[in-house]
């Protein structure tokens, strides 16, 4: 196996016995390799944490307690025998419940699939995590079929935000965001079609990466939009995220969208800092197209100035309007989603929650010409983002325009959910990472997004790590 990744803060496991839930991916992997930590001890500590907080946070659709403990015992025996499977040996992971895990049903958090038989095989992304030694803790809450919203008319309650359980955790990978932020597991898988990895990362103050389209296999994931779907890693730190992506990224000849990129070393450039980086600041997204909450705007300005002080060259960049990016995303997403859901929407519309029903049915009203128009415009948008990225190394822009609102305020959820700048990079397929930019006056995470050239995730990790180090974002925890 590869040498263990050194954690940015070397874990003193002995002094962390009561706080093992805050141990990160790299830290846990390192401690297991050195024999300072047993996978059974780690999983048991996390199960205790889950038992205490899950009744309030609802991150899980199905906690697979027995299987996780059994896998931890096997991992422990293997570690003792010096047979380490890979860089994630013994590290727990949560899986969004639109992703197949062998032996467990994939419900998509919907009555439509509530009685599904267990999946026969792991999705490729899960298979790769397990092959690297990860332990699956269970299946996680999502917005229904990754498109609904925080809904109360589904068979399971919606996940809540660990920073304030009265607020939503973002979505659609809501359980993934809530669970990572709450210390239920150090890493989770989410999916991102219009921002669904990056939204919960933004709302829960963690790190969410939507890598280049095709870098992570989608095989075994319930589709929402073939053109726009991505699978992404969610963690509490940038280093952990890079480590997780290094396991996930691979060509899959049976995924028609899979890419075969040159081998990348996501961890190598992590600590090179911001000196000499050329950063394009896409101000018009949050200043003109969708004026952001003042605290979000101030936080973005602070990130920009901090990176400038650290030696980056920052200049303003103009891209197409966020409104038009969003429209192109919606036409493609909803047309393709309709092609998947039409039979169920025709026969059993009442088995969907109201939000998913409303968000899936527009696809019935687009014409073939609309779909082609959106894809033509998409091609132009890709060229425009590529042109911008020829001038700079990375783009800096908003992720969410507002901190997470109250989960029980339906009109505020409806108003704030579309106020985001993530959809553009599903449309173009460029890699994008979202993370915490600060805290609002009421103690909720604010967010920032960095966007890079195709397959240059290493550059995104470098700038994200630079910001993380400047602001100490990897040390901020929700008050639970």
């Amino acid at each position, binding site marked *: 196996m590869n040498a263990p990744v050194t954690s940015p803060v070397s874990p003193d496991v002995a002094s962390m016995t009561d706080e093992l839930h805050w141990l990160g991916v790299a830290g846990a992997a390192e401690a297991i390799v050195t024999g300072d930590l047993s996978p059974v001890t780690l999983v048991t500590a996390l199960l205790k944490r889950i038992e205490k907080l899950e009744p309030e946070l609802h991150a899980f659709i199905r906690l697979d307690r027995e299987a996780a403990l059994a896998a931890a015992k096997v991992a422990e025996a293997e570690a003792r025998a010096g047979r380490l499977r890979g860089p994630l040996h013994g590290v727990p992971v949560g899986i969004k419940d639109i992703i197949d895990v062998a032996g467990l049903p994939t419900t998509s958090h919907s009555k439509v699939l509530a009685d599904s038989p267990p999946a026969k095989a792991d999705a490729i992304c899960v298979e790769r995590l397990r092959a690297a030694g990860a332990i699956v803790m269970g299946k996680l809450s999502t917005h229904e079929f990754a498109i609904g919203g925080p809904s109360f008319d589904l068979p399971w309650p919606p996940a809540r935000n660990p920073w304030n359980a009265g607020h939503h955790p973002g979505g659609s990978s809501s359980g993934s965001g809530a669970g990572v932020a709450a210390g239920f597991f150090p890493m989770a898988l989410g999916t991102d079609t219009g921002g669904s990895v990056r939204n919960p990362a933004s709302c829960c103050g963690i790190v969410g990466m939507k890598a280049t389209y095709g870098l992570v296999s989608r095989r075994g994931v319930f589709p929402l939009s073939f053109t726009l779907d991505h699978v992404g890693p969610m963690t509490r730190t940038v280093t952990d995220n890079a480590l997780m992506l290094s396991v996930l990224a691979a060509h899959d*000849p*049976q995924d*028609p969208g899979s890419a075969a990129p040159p081998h990348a070393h996501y961890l190598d450039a992590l600590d090179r800092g911001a000196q000499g980086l050329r950063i394009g600041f896409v101000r018009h997204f949050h200043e003109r197209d969708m004026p952001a909450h003042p605290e979000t705007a101030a936080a973005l300005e602070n990130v920009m100035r901090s990176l400038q002080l650290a030696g980056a060259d920052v200049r303003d960049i103009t891209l197409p309007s966020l*409104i*038009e990016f*969003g*429209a*192109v995303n*919606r*036409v493609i997403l*909803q047309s393709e989603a309709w092609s998947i859901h*039409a039979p169920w*929407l*025709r*026969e059993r*519309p*009442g088995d969907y929650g*109201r939000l998913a*029903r*409303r968000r*899936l*049915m*527009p*696809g*019935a*009203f*687009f014409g073939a010409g*609309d779909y*082609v*128009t*959106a*894809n*033509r*415009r*998409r*091609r132009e948008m*890709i060229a425009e983002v590529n042109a911008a990225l020829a001038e700079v190394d990375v783009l800096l822009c908003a992720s969410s325009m507002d901190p997470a609102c109250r989960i029980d305020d339906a009109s505020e959820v409806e108003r704030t959910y579309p106020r985001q700048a993530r959809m553009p990079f599903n449309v173009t397929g460029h890699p994008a990472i979202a993370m915490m930019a600060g805290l609002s006056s009421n103690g909720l995470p604010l967010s920032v997004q960095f966007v890079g050239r195709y397959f240059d995730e290493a550059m995104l990790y470098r700038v994200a790590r630079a910001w993380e180090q400047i602001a100490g974002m990897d040390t901020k925890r929700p008050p639970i």
Partner: protein
Amino acid sequence: MDKQIVDALARRAGLDKALAEFPDDVAAAARQAADVMAKIKAQDEPRAEPWPAMRAGEGL
């Protein structure tokens, strides 16, 4: 969009049941589709290809 047109399009798409049980949701979906298309810049080049073009010999 006119209600009669919405109803006709919904029936053509096979959404009779949704139309009977959730008429407001069907109307909202139709409205959303119309609004979204209005936000995309008109194409002035009818020969422009959408993305991605087919690449023979690649992929499956």
